[in-house]
């Protein structure tokens, strides 16, 4: 009897925990899809890929866009730091990833050329650092 009475609140609590965990799992992991606001800022050309492996602002960002980019760059830094293979630096790993990220930009998206200018990706190959693979 006591058990049955205890079960309900406990069960509810468990369900709440499970739901929270599910939401956290669905939202937080870096391997999920891109945030729609991030995707929109990319497509709009407000932000772009830099040769150093991080996102940069093409134009003065709105506070919301600035927050998104700062958050992603912090997560990228963490990923580069934990993912850099033995014998390479975080900067080197970030650089090579940046080479790939610029190569992966879609036509219309922005990227920073080695001379520091922002370019719009077109159908052709992007202008990248000569050391890129």
């Amino acid at each position, binding site marked *: 009897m006591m058990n049955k009475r205890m079960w309900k609140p406990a069960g509810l609590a468990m369900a709440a925990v499970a739901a929270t965990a599910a939401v956290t799992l669905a939202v937080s*992991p*870096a*391997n*999920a*899809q*891109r*945030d729609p606001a991030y995707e929109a800022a990319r497509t709009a050309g407000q932000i772009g890929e830099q040769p150093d492996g991080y996102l940069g602002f093409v134009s003065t960002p709105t506070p919301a866009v600035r927050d998104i980019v700062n958050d*992603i760059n912090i*997560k*990228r830094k963490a*990923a*580069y730091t934990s*993912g850099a*293979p033995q*014998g*390479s630096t975080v900067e*080197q*790993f970030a*650089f*090579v*990833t940046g*080479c*790939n*990220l610029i190569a*992966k930009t879609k036509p219309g998206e922005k990227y920073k050329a080695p001379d520091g200018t922002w370019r719009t990706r077109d159908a052709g190959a992007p202008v990248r650092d000569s*050391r*890129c*693979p």
Partner: protein
Amino acid sequence: MKISTKAARRRAIGGRCLAAMTGAAALAGCVQIETPDKPIEINLNINIRQEIVYRLDGDAKKLIEENSGIF
């Protein structure tokens, strides 16, 4: 006559010295791989860099794939 002999000897010694110096210089030139040190060093750096770049390329692609939300 004596003076001229002395001068000749001096010249001869000078010549020998010059030859020795030239020889030394030539020898130094042979050993001195330091002279083209700069371009060699730059090439070496590029090679090392490329090696690192190519080694990291696969890891970079994997990182992007596994963390598509932040790339």
